[in-house]
């Protein structure tokens, strides 16, 4: 039920407008819950191949050398079919919902947030492709991802938006006119030439293709901001360096330099401006995933604290049986519960009103439900889906989304991300309160979780920028004075 749907009775409409998550939940989600259970099993099998202890050891190696090979993790994810979890069955994927995927990422983040981000950052690029209505490009990418996955390889994507002098302002249409872009895409015969630098690109040096965001005219970024699919082997693209990060080292961040980097017209994702609706749709969805990460941290902190407290004593009493320990464990559990509720709320709202709602109504998703699983390998020959002719109706679907719906989805994603990043850090702090100096022991994995969690309030726009976004978007909500 859309907030703008005209035929709802007045009282129902008011209730649904005020409580969009309940409106979404009212329909019931039995299929999604079954998918979540399936996704959880994939994560469990992945962690059998690469154990949390191995991930901890890998983190130490990455601390010394951020270019340390991640082949073990990438291969395990391929073997278990992680990359294609949310790809439609018609294209050879598992066709799981965003909810199921976020649940899988939450579960993985409870063990290693960096690894969860390694797997999720790839999805951000796909979200940009989807939000620009580039269905043909999306189909080709999905097919390539599935094909490589079946060979036990990872066909990774990355997104390059941040620049040395332009960060969170790139993501906000109101801030964009003042953003200090240095990267520019100049039109030329047959395509565009990209020049500039991009920083903090998750998986940048691992990706086969990078979605580069740049304006055609830096003086008019709102009107000309565009996204381009750039192959990693493009001679005009160079990996400048890979950052030494505080945490989430399993998801390395790279800087790229673009020197007169030619991309064909077909590699431009959509022709409409990226700023505004498209970016709001992407960030509304991706911030739900960051919120799920936060819940993963909170659940992991609770799980590890519970175990450690059962193995220690305070004044001769088992720590988890003391009032002191019990009170802290209760707060840790409550943090995890609140964080779960927060990302669930935001994800369901996005599935109803945001980017993932397009998946529900798009031809691909409908087709997905009709194609029997046995046909999926043959479906790779569905070349007709790659035609750019489908881009126009896909773009129309995006254009027809009511502005207020997008605002509802975006505000929920941003608010959940803010809350859950704070809950995650609070949980790490509470573990220190409970265990004292033991919580600094590297072998426990607790310091790594703290370092990893500290990135949550920064990426996908800092929490401060997210808060401005929530304030702005909620002004569009019904009942708010204009």
């Amino acid at each position, binding site marked *: 039920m859309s907030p703008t749907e005209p035929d709802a009775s007045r009282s129902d409409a008011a209730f649904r407008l005020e409580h969009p998550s309940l409106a979404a939940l009212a329909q019931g989600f039995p299929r999604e819950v079954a998918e979540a259970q399936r996704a959880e099993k994939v994560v469990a099998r992945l962690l059998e191949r690469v154990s949390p202890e191995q991930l901890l050891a890998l983190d130490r190696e990455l601390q010394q050398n951020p270019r340390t090979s991640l082949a073990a993790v990438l291969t395990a994810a391929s073997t278990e079919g992680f990359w294609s979890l949310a790809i439609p069955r018609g294209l050879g994927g598992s066709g799981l919902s965003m909810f199921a995927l976020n649940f899988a990422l939450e579960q993985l983040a409870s063990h290693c947030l960096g690894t969860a981000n390694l797997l999720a950052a790839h999805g951000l690029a796909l979200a940009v492709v989807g939000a620009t209505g580039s269905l043909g490009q999306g189909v080709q990418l999905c097919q390539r991802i599935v094909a490589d996955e079946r060979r036990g390889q990872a066909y990774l994507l990355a997104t390059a938006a941040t620049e040395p002098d332009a960060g969170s302002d790139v993501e906000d249409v109101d801030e964009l006119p003042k953003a200090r872009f240095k990267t520019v895409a100049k039109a030329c015969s047959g395509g565009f030439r990209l020049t500039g630098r991009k920083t903090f690109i998750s998986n940048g040096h691992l990706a086969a293709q990078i979605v580069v965001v740049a304006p055609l005219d830096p003086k008019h970024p709102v009107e000309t901001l565009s996204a381009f699919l750039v192959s990693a082997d493009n001679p005009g693209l160079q990996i400048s360096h890979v950052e030494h990060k505080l945490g989430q080292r399993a998801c390395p*961040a790279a800087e790229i330099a673009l020197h007169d980097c030619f991309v064909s017209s077909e590699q431009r994702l959509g022709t409409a401006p990226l700023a505004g609706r498209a970016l709001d749709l992407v960030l509304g969805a991706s911030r739900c995933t960051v919120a799920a990460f936060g819940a993963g941290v909170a659940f992991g902190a609770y799980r590890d604290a519970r175990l450690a407290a059962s193995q220690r004593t305070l004044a001769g009493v088992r720590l988890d049986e003391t009032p002191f320990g019990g009170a802290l464990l209760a707060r840790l559990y409550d943090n995890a519960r609140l964080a779960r509720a927060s990302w669930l709320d935001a994800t369901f709202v996005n599935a109803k009103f945001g980017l993932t709602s397009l998946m529900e109504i798009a031809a691909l998703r409908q087709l997905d439900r009709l194609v029997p699983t046995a046909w999926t390998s043959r479906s790779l020959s569905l070349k007709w889906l790659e035609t750019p002719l489908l881009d126009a109706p896909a773009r129309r679907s995006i254009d027809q989304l009511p502005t207020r719906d997008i605002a509802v989805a975006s505000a929920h994603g941003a608010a959940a991300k803010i809350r859950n990043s704070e809950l995650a850090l609070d949980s790490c702090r509470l573990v220190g309160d409970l*265990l004292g100096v033991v919580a600094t022991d590297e072998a426990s994995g607790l310091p790594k979780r703290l370092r990893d969690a500290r990135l949550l309030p*920064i990426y996908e726009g800092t929490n401060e920028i997210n808060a401005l976004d929530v304030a702005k978007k909620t002004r569009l909500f019904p009942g708010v004075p204009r």
Partner: protein
Amino acid sequence: MKLTPSLLPLARDSVRGFLQAFSAELVSYESSPLSSPSEVLWNEMGELGWCAEGTAPGGQESSEPDLDATLLAVLAGTLATSSPALASLLLSQHFAARLVTRDSSPLREDGSPAPAAAQQSFAVPLYSNLLADEPELSLSSLDQADASVQGTVSYLVGPPCFSRVVAGARRPDGERCLVELQLAPGVSFQRCSLLGLWGASCWNQQLAPGQVTVRQVISGVDLEGRVQAAQKLIAPALAAIAEGLAQTAVARSLSYAELRIQGGQPIVLHPAVATLLETERRAIRTAQAARSSLAQAGASLGALTDALEGACEATSAAIQVLGGAGYMRGADVERLYRDAQQLRLVLGRPGLRS
């Protein structure tokens, strides 16, 4: 040595000269997880009289520490602006020296000028594990000459060159005690924490026979009182380190926020950034107040908890001001954040401290 008004600038000048002389080493010292202070640097600290001498002449507890808690706070606070890890190491030596008697002091055993401090340093847990219900070490005999220990020592703070350990133990008759141990040559311990204060290494080791000898068994005295006195000696200095961390956080945040343009203006002018900066400044004020109150007789360690929490908030706010840049090594604020988090727990569980 008691602090007098004339000593205060002298102490600060002394630290600043030291920091200048060793600036290059301190930069590398703070930027590697497996770093350690050179013996030259450590010995220089001994020469300057900063390291502890032991505080209980003739086996009796003394009310006259070698360094006044306030002077120690001045030294540690000034050191912390460049190297919180080194400042923490300094405290660990004073903490240990408060627990042992002078005849087993690591320095100046014969009253001569400070010998090579690097060869005679302590590693000691700074938190209440010293007096845990179930000490990690068990002592084989009450006769010190025949005594040996077995068990594991955990979360010791000390420089990599330490040769002595002070730890909690259980006597054969079940009583708790403290032991001072001498390491056999070539014995190496394992680092257990790489979170923060990289240079002030945190060590774990299961002790095998022959790895240590017992230099001293401390029992029959008010152990809790002695440990509390040692904690109170270093508490103002810990608050001073927290203040140093918050001050550095403000300096780094301001220098970035004044230059970083967003929305057509320096981000220092954005209300959200101003709020973060105020969080950092509040942490300085809290730490300063804590440092003063902790130097008073009968002060509660609750003020220290406030100061350490403030340092965590300030350094976290600094990362937030710098955004992605603050999360990367090299911007310095990620180190401040790690150091604050480590410092927060160095005296044990914050909620049970006071």
